[in-house]
């Protein structure tokens, strides 16, 4: 009987590497491992493309591919007959796949060197179990202990209720976090968990509470954008990493190749995992109070298949409650809502000198002259507190690289406004009167300059 794709979801967790065969126009078959097969929906999967390699070139010429995936618990094999549909370079699917790769790249010191180029979407034309791949189990040798009964909905609702009560009754932040993590452990089995809180400057997170690490790790700091936790903080998306060991080995293999190819200078030191050194699964989620990031909740396990969609959904509910609880604790007493200054989100801008481009919260914003203009304005605001500027002073600034005639300053400002509206609406350039405009900030802004996207 042909199973449905959803029924073999375990095969897409990335624990046992999958295999892909392709064939180009020249008729030469090619076979290799692939790092990530992502289950998109009942009829589609997506493969991660980090390098434009032979597989990718073949598929551009001949869209058919065969992929072998393995169940990491039973080692049953399944063959997927695929046809390439499209390569996505942005959007929700791309973001989910890119976040996982970014987390691995960051831990193996390869931020910027190793990243997702595209999420390649394929039609699944057929799904075939590989009949006869495994011999029947031996009744004595292969007798396995009975699987544990799955937790029922009553346990889950009861757990959620207890977590909510502890959050609402807590008298201080320490009690709130400790009580919540204790309930998650005892009632729901999340036995290794940490809460990171965002620092005031918005550049790093610090472990404020932990459960299952024997008190170790408290106070550990992680930079925004660094590792799984920092990536979640920067992108504000949840990341579920399964087969962490497999992912890190894959990352290190690429790191080795980068070094062999003479590009060692691009590599940063490896970043140890913040919790269990041998974690096999991590579920890390942003704690958001409205638009504001207050921290990150991380749970992990040595069991590579410990977390699934249910855990994601469930912890998201718990995470929202924790975030609101933290927000309430941190608000000055007698005040229902946090002070306006405190409520501002933080946006981190980085200017890459060698590339003349600006990133905001790790995402590309703008390059060339508009980037230099933005950097000048943000810098003057930070250093001198200025918020009003003239077109004339921009035209007179030789460092911006505007041509002497036909400088197109207006159209460059329009482009910059449009990019800001798309990527960072908290920063606006508002015309005041002819030839003058104001920089309006609805966020706390941090500024940093680096040489190039590969450096730290």
């Amino acid at each position, binding site marked *: 009987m042909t199973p449905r794709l959803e029924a073999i979801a375990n095969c897409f967790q990335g*624990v*046992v*590497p999958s*295999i*892909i*065969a*392709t*064939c180009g126009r020249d*008729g*030469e*078959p*090619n*076979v*290799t*491992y692939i*790092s990530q097969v992502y289950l998109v929906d009942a009829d589609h999967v997506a493969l991660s493309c*980090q*390098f434009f*390699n*032979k597989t990718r070139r073949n598929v551009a010429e*001949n869209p*058919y*591919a*065969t992929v*072998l995936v393995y169940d*990491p618990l*039973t*080692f049953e*094999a399944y063959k997927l*007959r695929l046809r390439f549909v499209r390569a996505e370079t942005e959007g929700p699917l791309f973001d989910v796949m890119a976040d996982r790769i970014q987390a691995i790249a960051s831990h193996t010191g390869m931020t910027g060197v*190793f990243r997702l180029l595209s999420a390649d979407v394929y039609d699944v034309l057929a799904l075939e179990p*590989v*009949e*006869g*791949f*495994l*011999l*029947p*189990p*031996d009744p004595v*040798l*292969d007798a396995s202990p009975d699987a544990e009964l799955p937790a029922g909905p009553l346990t889950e609702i009861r757990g959620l209720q207890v977590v909510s009560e502890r959050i609402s009754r807590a008298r201080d932040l320490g009690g709130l976090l400790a009580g919540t993590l204790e309930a998650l452990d005892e009632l729901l089995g999340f036995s290794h968990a940490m809460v990171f809180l965002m620092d005031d400057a918005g550049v790093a997170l610090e472990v404020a509470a932990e459960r299952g690490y024997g008190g170790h790790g408290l106070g550990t700091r992680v930079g925004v954008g660094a590792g799984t936790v920092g990536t979640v903080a920067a992108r504000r998306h949840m990341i579920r990493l399964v*087969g962490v*060991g*497999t992912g890190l*080995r*894959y990352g*290190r*293999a*690429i*790191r*080795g*190749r*980068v070094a*062999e*190819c003479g*590009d060692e200078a691009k590599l940063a030191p490896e970043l140890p995992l913040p919790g269990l050194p041998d974690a*096999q699964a991590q579920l890390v989620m942003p704690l958001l109070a409205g638009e504001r990031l207050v921290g990150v909740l991380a749970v992990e396990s040595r069991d*590579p298949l410990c977390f699934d969609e249910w855990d994601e959904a469930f912890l998201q509910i718990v995470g929202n409650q924790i975030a609101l609880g933290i927000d309430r604790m941190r608000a000055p007493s007698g005040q229902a809502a946090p002070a306006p200054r405190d409520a501002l989100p933080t946006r981190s801008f980085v200017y890459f000198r060698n590339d003349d481009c600006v990133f905001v919260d790790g995402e590309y914003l703008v390059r060339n002259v508009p980037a230099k203009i933005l950097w000048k304005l943000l810098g003057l605001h930070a250093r001198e507190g200025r918020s009003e500027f003239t077109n004339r002073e921009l035209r007179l600034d030789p460092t911006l690289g505007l041509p002497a005639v036909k400088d197109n300053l207006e159209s460059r400002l329009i482009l910059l406004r449009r990019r800001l509206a798309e990527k960072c609406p908290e920063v606006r350039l508002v015309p005041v009167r002819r030839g003058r405009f104001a920089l309006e900030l609805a966020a706390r802004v941090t500024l940093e300059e680096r040489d190039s996207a590969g450096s730290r």
Partner: protein
Amino acid sequence: MLSPDLAEFLESGVSILVGTRGDRFAPDCMRALGARVEPGLGELTVYLPEAVAESNLANLRDVPRAAICFSRPQDHRSIQIKGTVLEVREAREDERAVVERYRGALAASLGVLGLPPRIVFRVAHWPCRALRVRVESVFVQTPGPGAGAPLARPEGEAAP
């Protein structure tokens, strides 16, 4: 073109993936269970378990070309070999030891990924078909920059 070091790697029990294609360019693949390098001949033999080999063997009857990827799960060191399939025959009883030894090595290396050896030992592994392949090109396939670059070029560039 198969140095002693490379031959040792190919025979060391690393993962072996075989890719083929049919006459309508539809690709297929499977795991092989063992490899033997013929010293000095530029040929190697890989073993395909019959229980799951039919679709790939049908491809090879139409188009005798194979891609064979050797990869070590611990560090992803990978080599891909391409060549012409010179012969497909039943594996001999005296070759069974190669396949049995390979199964043990595979269980050990997949154990690194967390798969219990008792499950890997259930892989159907005998009888096998032996695929004798003339090695025509060798590529570095370790993931990262330069993946797919040729490791060596065959003398006289034998055409399929």
